[in-house]
């Protein structure tokens, strides 16, 4: 086994690396918000999504097979959700007639508060009630509002956090035109 020719240099190099590790001890675990990607185009298969709506009716993602689906993860206490709800409503008006389905997933919420939100914003689509965030876990959602675009074959094409900026272009490309 070859011996290190200059043990002091090796020690100094190792020590520098170790010091860097020790000093960076706190930054080894940055806050999750600094790691989250606000927008990403993906091609992952969508996990199963099924549950009961806020009004008690069953909802399943499989029922939308063959159509593009926009899935919005939201909560009534979430300020950014309230800020983008009007824009989401206008997407519903524009794309529902073109065969796009919309479904919400209400996470970490109370049903009465969520229903009051739906009434206030006149939300036209149904939402799965997910107080335990199970669907957020299976879709690997970081926080509300997260919006996903799933194509007709069940593949997630777009994932956006806190913005809807690329939803229109993604839906247009899935529908084959502007």
């Amino acid at each position, binding site marked *: *086994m070859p*011996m*290190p020719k200059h*043990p*002091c240099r*090796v*020690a*100094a190099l*190792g*020590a520098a690396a*170790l*010091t860097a*590790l*020790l*000093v960076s*001890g*706190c930054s*080894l*675990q*940055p*806050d*999750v918000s600094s*790691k989250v990607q606000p927008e990403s185009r993906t091609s992952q298969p969508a996990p199963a999504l099924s549950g009961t709506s806020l009004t008690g009716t069953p909802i399943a993602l499989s029922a939308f097979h063959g159509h593009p689906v926009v899935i919005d*993860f939201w909560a*009534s*206490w*979430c*300020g*950014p959700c*309230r*800020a*983008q709800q009007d824009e989401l409503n206008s997407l519903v008006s524009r794309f529902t007639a073109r065969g796009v389905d919309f479904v919400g997933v209400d*996470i*970490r919420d*109370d*049903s*009465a*508060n969520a229903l*009051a*939100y739906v*009434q*206030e914003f006149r939300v036209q689509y149904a939402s799965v009630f997910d*107080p*335990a*965030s*199970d669907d*957020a*876990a*299976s879709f*690997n*959602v*970081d*926080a*509300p509002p997260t919006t996903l675009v799933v194509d007709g074959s069940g593949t997630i094409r777009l994932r956006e956090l*806190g913005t809807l900026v690329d939803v229109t272009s993604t839906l247009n490309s899935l529908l084959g035109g502007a």
Partner: protein
Amino acid sequence: MATTTAPPPSPRRTAAPPPRRRTRARSRLGRFWHEYTRMRTAIYFLIGILMIVLIGTFVPQEFTSASQRVSEFLTAHPNLNDLFTRLGLPLTSVFVSPLFYILLASLYIALLSCVITRGRALIVRTVRRYPRTPQYWGEWGSWLFHTSFFLLVVAVVWGKATGFDGIMTITQGQRVAETRASYDTLQEGMLFDGHHAGYEVQLNSFRAPLQANGMPSDFVSNMTVYSGGRAVLTKDVRVNDFLGYDGVDFYQQDYGWAPHMVVRNPAGEVVSDTDIQMISDDKTASTGVLKVPAFNYTLPGQTKPMQIGAKLVLYPDAQALPQVTGASNTLNFSYAAGSAAANNPVLEVQLFIGDLGIDNGTSQDVFTLDTGAMSPYYLGAAAFALPLHQTTTLSLPAANGGTADFTVSFPDLRQFSLFHVKKDNGVPLVYTAFVLTMVGLLSKLYLRPFLERRRRARASAPALGGRVSTPPGAPSPGPMREEVLTR
């Protein structure tokens, strides 16, 4: 005496200092390095670290102690804390202070030098098949002992980099999934892949039995883990008895009251039906905030629906203080904190109406009410009392000069638990480092003396004509051993 001729300096080296200065600098550096890597210096570093640990034991620390105790210390000793902060050692955060890191790094640098030098010598002795003396095995033990400290650092760094550390609050009866969206705060390691376990945990019950002095004797959260919808584990979680499942550990860190509140708007619709998490240090009086962004009622003359918010104070054991107020000598009650037991829960509600400031897209702190665009419901923002199981009816202006009533109810008082949730993949490595430390230490302290005694016993046996001499304090080898040695 041999003479040497220095080689002519190459053109690229003309800027270097003259050889004598270089030698002097090298010599000084060598002396410094020699002093720095001495055992005595390492002991000084250790004493420094020990002093800081002692300070951290007696002074409340920001990340581990109750915030009230930290504030009290800072208020009581502002000058002392300023002085130590200037020296790189803020007293309430000593374990993340520059001085602590510098001492730790200095110790490890010295240790690294020692490990490399000794390791090199040991490998040379092993490769060249030098005699395996007791000292040789003792040296290996010593080397293993020192090297295992590095494994400890690697374990800590690996655990931090590949794991996560977060805070999760769960109210009694609530079930939440172990996923990013369920955390109040979350720090993930740089090498963590972002995929959480996804199973659910439910807080079945919480109890904090009180002693005669009013302090809780224990905090116990009864929790069940559900995986694939099936209950797989139920456990009582205490401060030093965590719940671990699938590599994720839940530690009981704190708890608090969570009054259940229901708000109905003038149309009679339930617009808020939720548990409000309250914060408090001693649990005899807790504060919290109610926010109803979707109140769904528009005041006359307004175009935007109003929102309501309230600052809350909860006394689980409210002590009523009668007060006579006003010209009509009306008898009212104000409330003060009693014990931490839920003997007479009363909420003091300070109501505001207007704009919660939540619609501009920014996230808000759930424990803070931004009243910048709100008005107090009562003149002077006076609070009203709302005892448990009671409903208060309040009026708002309605069209045609009339009034519209809405209600605020307090039907139930629950508790929540605050868990420190961790995934630390470095724990097995930490245990390995601990075992290696013990093996090294035992080899150094016991194996070497044992081998030396045995060698002395062997060496002295022929000289005594068949008798074995036992060194003072060493155990006798026994008659069978004597027989073998005298052959």
